[in-house]
């Protein structure tokens, strides 16, 4: 049992058996799978409350848990901040469904920054999975080698490092090892040659095997996949594998170089583990991208951050999007949402969109329960859990409220990302007219926001679609990743105080 059963059931530490039972019944009524058929988040949480109830109603286990918790408490543990801001606090009862947004922010303990200066940084268990297929020939593979050398330079002797190269086959270039002899490691990377095709699954599988050899709760276990090509037939297997390793505590970040790779696949792969996906336009940017990425990993406060969202049975979670630190669309089909690493100096922000039902009764009502899980690396008892029940007031005469600036700001940019997404969906349905008009709307919005270059990109893609019934490879990636990138400039990116 790694979670705090008191937190899970919303109980005081001195709760008696009666309190425990009634808290369990109350939560179970809301989270029971029978009333939450289409709500995977509720299923995850239902098993948590059941486990918590079992633990607390067993006297021996409860005493043992309390003793252990008291010991952990006495060690001056670091904590996480979990702050939820709704777009409105009071809504009117309408005869039709309405939308509400929640901004969830996960904030590192400010004391961690001071501690960080005395202690050495978080330890890395890093695996690079590098595409060395034929298409990488020339400057691409050279840049990748330079980038790998720079990464080796940054690593400390306590870090674990491994490199797997793949084309049609996979090859372990550097087996997982502490970073002692940097020159020897670099020499092995330099031997990589470009040849063959691209089979991502094989590379990923071998990379995971290396990462697992040192996999541990006190490490930042991370795989960086870099590819420039499309993989065929093994995408589903790759994503399934990513889901499995996410549970073990490994995150995968995926970097696509050039135009030919499959962005939907790499996005899915990364977001299944809480990692990030990136679009690297040209070989010359590889070194910078990889370096920035690794630098962020060496400054981690908490690992395996994840939230699960269980809306009330009549409320629907429509979408989730990570706004910061790396903007990313999140999958909501799993019941929990992996968010990867929380850095010491930057918060994680997630925007959730819900639909509330028509004809809500006046008064206070809950709309969802959010549970945050994370391993705080500096703590001896790492697992941290925070829970938040969100409730709103339904009132006949809600006072006009300005939605919080952070939400409006982020959403304005997120809407652009959604527009390109909807244009792509229209193309997939074969509705060229709709796709064209969506791209034109996007262009108009981008122009209004002063994003002239991106607006031109949208216009030329609108024309491209009108003539060829599809987006260009380059255009679809530019629109997707650059509209996503706009979120970096929004106010949610501010440093926590």
């Amino acid at each position, binding site marked *: 049992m790694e979670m705090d059963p008191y937190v899970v059931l919303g109980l005081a530490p001195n709760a008696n058996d009666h309190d425990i039972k009634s808290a369990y019944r109350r939560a179970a009524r809301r989270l029971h799978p029978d009333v939450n058929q289409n709500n995977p988040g509720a299923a995850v949480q239902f098993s948590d409350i059941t486990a918590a109830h079992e633990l607390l109603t067993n006297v021996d286990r409860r005493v043992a848990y309390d003793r252990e918790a008291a010991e952990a408490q006495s060690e001056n543990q670091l904590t996480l901040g979990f702050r939820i801001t709704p777009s409105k606090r009071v809504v009117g009862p309408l005869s039709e469904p309405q939308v509400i947004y929640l901004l969830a922010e996960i904030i590192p303990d400010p004391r961690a920054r001071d501690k960080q200066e005395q202690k050495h940084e978080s330890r890395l268990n890093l695996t690079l999975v590098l595409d060395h297929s034929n298409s990488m020939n020339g400057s691409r593979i050279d840049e990748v080698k330079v980038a790998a050398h720079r990464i080796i330079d940054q690593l400390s002797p306590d870090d674990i490092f491994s490199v797997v190269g793949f084309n049609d086959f996979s090859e372990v270039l550097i087996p997982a090892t502490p970073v002692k002899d940097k020159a020897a490691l670099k020499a092995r990377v330099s031997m990589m040659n470009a040849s063959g095709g691209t089979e991502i699954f094989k590379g990923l599988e071998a990379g995971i095997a290396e990462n697992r050899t040192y996999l541990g709760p006190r490490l930042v276990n991370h795989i960086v996949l870099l590819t420039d090509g499309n993989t065929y037939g093994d995408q589903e297997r790759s994503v399934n594998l990513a889901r499995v390793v996410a549970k073990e505590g490994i995150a995968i970040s995926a970097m696509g170089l050039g135009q030919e790779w499959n962005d939907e696949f790499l996005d899915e792969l990364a977001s299944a583990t809480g990692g990030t996906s990136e679009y690297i336009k040209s070989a010359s940017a590889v070194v910078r991208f990889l370096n920035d990425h690794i630098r962020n990993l060496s400054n981690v406060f908490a690992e395996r951050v994840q939230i699960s969202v269980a809306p009330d049975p009549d409320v629907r979670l429509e979408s989730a999007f990570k706004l910061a630190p790396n903007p990313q669309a999140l999958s909501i089909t799993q019941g929990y949402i992996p968010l990867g690493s929380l850095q010491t100096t930057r918060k994680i922000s997630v925007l959730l969109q819900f639909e509330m039902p028509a004809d809500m009764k006046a008064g206070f009502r809950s709309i969802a329960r959010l549970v945050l899980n994370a391993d705080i690396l500096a703590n001896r008892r790492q697992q941290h859990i925070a829970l938040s029940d969100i409730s709103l007031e339904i009132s006949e005469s809600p006072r006009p409220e300005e939605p919080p600036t952070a939400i409006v700001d982020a959403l304005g940019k997120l809407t652009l990302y959604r*527009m390109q997404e909807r244009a792509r969906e229209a193309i997939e349905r074969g509705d060229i007219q709709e796709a064209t008009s969506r791209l034109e709307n996007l*262009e108009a919005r981008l122009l209004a926001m002063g994003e002239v270059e991106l607006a031109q990109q949208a216009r030329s893609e609108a024309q491209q679609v009108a003539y060829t019934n599809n987006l260009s490879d380059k255009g679809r990636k530019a629109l997707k990743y650059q509209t996503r990138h706009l979120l970096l400039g929004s106010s949610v990116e501010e440093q926590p105080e």
Partner: protein
Amino acid sequence: MKNCPYCGWSHVREGLLFCEECGQPLTTDASVTLPTRDLKSSENINGAVPTWGTTTLSKDSTIVLHIGASEPLTLPAETETILGRRDGASVRLPDLDLTPYGALEKGVSRIHASIQRKDDTLMLVDMGSSNGTHLNGQRLVAEQPRVLRDGDEIRLGKLTVFIYFKG
């Protein structure tokens, strides 16, 4: 559900902060967000100009065309109006003859473009004209309908027409 004041999309749920269709902000304070729009010259603008007029027509709105300094023209209340230039020889005739506005000199085709009224929206379609149809400076692809907004600038060859919704 409400209509988006910008694009007329009719599925705006309460609580949405941005239109899911056109991306315009739906904040309550309209005076802050209502954009202004300059009427353009008839140059081929190499960078389209955003337009903000409504696309929604009510049942009894009339459509008015302004061509140069002449008296505004009211569009017949038909489902389709073909714009073009009447000429003795052709078999198919346009519904709206633009000859009095210098259509021949300005390169308007005999059958140039059509304005189609569908329920509550208005569409512009280029009918394969020789010199093209531009909407707000963007050239249309032949036979691909585009939604017209109040105040849009249509250019047939070199003849500029502004379209307004009244009522």
